[in-house]
């Protein structure tokens, strides 16, 4: 184990009592195995194929403070916070540094028998459900950070959508990071969507103070037979923040799941999204959009596992990189031997606005079945001169024409978002971002820096 990894290993050893104090015995039972895996794998480095374009050193060498239970905070305004998504009618959950800032409503019931709340709080009431799903979908992962999370995360969000329940309004998790100290957060979410159920989840990531932050979050999602699940992640953090997310979506027969990662701002962002198609007729969509400038770095890793026949998957990731920003896309489609009739598409398009911006893109197709339809494509380029001229020839200034083209490029990802109010809001935010008007957290009108 290298020095940096050892520091995190020691952090675990020194704090294991505090880490496990509020968690259920079942969740705690994973910790020792996980830290063992972490000590074997260590923190990812560039020699790890899936981190080839991403250097975590700078962020992981820094000294952060870690908290393993909620810290008393005067941040009582959190409840008012709604990301300024106008007209977004959602069931809200506000987390501060990965924890529920208030005691009340730690576990509450929504219409149709749906429950949302803290994972620790749900441990007793949903013991069977948690024991059936927790830790199952990350199993076998080779990323040391996933295991570090399993070992050390002390709470997170739990959502339970019982069979046949359809939630009309989306659930919105607002992840706020705010502290007077530089901190390292790890949280762990578990979402269970049973047979024929339907839910949309929006996750908004924001930083509210200028300190250095590092977040390593894991979300496990079970999508039952014929169930429908959408997750939309909107990331808007400052340049001193590093955000690492791991999302595991496990799909049963005839289910439909989509993931949408919109990265508007952030120092280092690394999203890994894993789609496991485990039942025939399942359909998955993975979308991503990132806009980066200055020294920002955004990396999307997508892994789609076609484990059974007749599933469909689709990936579309787009990036606009300005200044000396860097980006990475690594998309893997794995079609197992018996997964005949697989249909899998992958597309990654990037625009570099300067000579210093860089993009690494790497499609990977591993196909062991013979009756499949797969395609992939990747482009890295500039704005299309012919299109620019076409707009100018109608009286639109060059500056405005460039903006329209970049916006149009980005909109192709945003248009896939099913929540209309969010889609409109994102169109606005992207436009502001492209105009250079979206500074730190400018999206938040409410008590937000």
């Amino acid at each position: 184990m290298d020095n940096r990894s050892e520091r995190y290993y020691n952090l675990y050893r020194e704090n294991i009592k505090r880490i496990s104090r509020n968690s259920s015995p079942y969740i705690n039972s994973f910790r020792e195995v996980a830290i063992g895996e972490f000590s074997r794998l260590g923190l990812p480095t560039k020699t790890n194929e899936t981190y080839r374009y991403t250097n975590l050193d700078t962020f992981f060498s820094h000294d952060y403070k870690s908290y393993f239970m909620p810290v008393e905070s005067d941040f009582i305004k959190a409840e008012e916070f709604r990301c300024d998504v106008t007209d977004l009618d959602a069931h809200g959950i506000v987390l501060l540094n990965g924890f529920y800032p208030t005691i009340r409503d730690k576990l509450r019931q929504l219409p149709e028998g749906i429950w949302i709340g803290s994972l620790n709080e749900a441990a007793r009431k949903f013991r069977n459900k948690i024991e059936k799903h927790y830790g199952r979908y990350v199993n076998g992962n080779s990323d040391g950070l996933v295991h570090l999370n399993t070992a050390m995360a002390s709470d997170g969000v739990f959502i339970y959508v019982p069979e046949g329940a359809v939630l009309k309004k989306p659930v919105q998790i607002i992840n706020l990071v705010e502290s007077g100290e530089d901190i390292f957060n790890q949280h762990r979410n578990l979402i269970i969507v049973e047979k024929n159920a339907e839910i949309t989840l929006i996750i908004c990531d924001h930083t509210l103070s200028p300190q250095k932050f590092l977040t390593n979050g894991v979300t496990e999602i079970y999508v039952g037979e014929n169930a429908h699940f959408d997750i939309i992640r909107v990331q808007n953090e400052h340049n001193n923040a590093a955000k690492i997310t791991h999302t595991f979506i496990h799909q049963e027969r005839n289910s439909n799941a989509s993931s949408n990662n919109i990265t508007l701002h952030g120092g280092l962002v690394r999203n890994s999204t894993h789609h496991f198609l485990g039942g025939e007729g399942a359909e998955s969509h993975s979308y991503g959009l990132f806009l980066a400038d200055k020294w920002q770095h955004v990396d999307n890793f997508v892994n789609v596992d076609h484990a059974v026949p007749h599933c469909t998957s689709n990936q579309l990731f787009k990036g606009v990189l300005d200044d000396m920003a860097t980006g990475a896309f690594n998309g893997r489609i794995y079609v197992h031997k018996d997964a005949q009739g697989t249909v899998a598409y992958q597309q990654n398009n990037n625009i570099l606005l300067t000579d210093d911006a860089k993009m690494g893109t790497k499609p990977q197709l591993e196909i062991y079945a013979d009756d499949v339809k797969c395609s992939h494509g990747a482009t890295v380029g500039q704005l299309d001169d012919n299109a620019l001229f076409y707009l100018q020839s109608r009286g639109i200034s060059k500056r405005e024409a460039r903006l329209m083209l970049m916006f149009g490029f980005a909109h192709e990802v945003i248009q896939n978002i099913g929540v209309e109010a969010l889609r409109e809001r994102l169109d606005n935010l992207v436009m502001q971002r492209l105009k250079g008007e979206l500074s730190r957290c400018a999206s938040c009108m409410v008590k937000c820096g």
Partner: protein
Amino acid sequence: MLVIKNLKAAIEGKVILKGISLEVKAGEIHALMGPNGSGKSTLAAVLAGREFVQVLEGTVTYNGRNLLEMAAEERSREGIFLGFQYPIEIPGVSMVNFMKTAVNEHRKHRGLEPLSASDFLKLMREKKELVEIDSKLANRSVNEGFSGGEKKKNEIFQMAMLEPKLAILDETDSGLDIDALRIVANGVNRLKRPDTSVIVITHYQRLLDYIIPDVVHVLYDGRIVKTAGKELALELEEKGYDWIKREE
């Protein structure tokens, strides 16, 4: 309105226009004909302000101003419209947003307030009817997935929205079936006002059955080799371009 004098221009070092002189007066319709590679589209590109064409010599004056010094967007705002031979597809940019931006840039240039959303939609509706364009097309991304005919109709629709003083239609008729051709030509005729001018670039006489030119020019090897009335187009239709080449 438009005076071109001894215009010479090159693309990537290759001289294409070898001294063109032409005057278009307000209200006139000019047809520019000629075989492939004679320089018709290059001339249109120079007039619209494409940067990849280098002007080597000569002048172009538009309503008393030096056109060659004006940026492409300024030419448009001053009333020049280019109907593209190959209209560009722009995914993600809606026709509505595109036209709203363009119309309001034109209005700003004339010192007018932007149109309200409802006035703008009303204007779109009127103009759509004028060029018989399918309503659905206006809700899609610019030219994306449009058929060849739809793209050409869309050019005329944009022309209707921007009401130019000088329209240059670069082979707007190519690839159109007879119904689409009639619709496009009718659109142009309805948009024509007594003081506006049109330059129609075409290979074929058939468009000129609908849009009757005042003057027909034949371009060959970067020069205008013949200028006459509308009967010249008929003669070309009958005899082809070879006799012109031979006269050279």
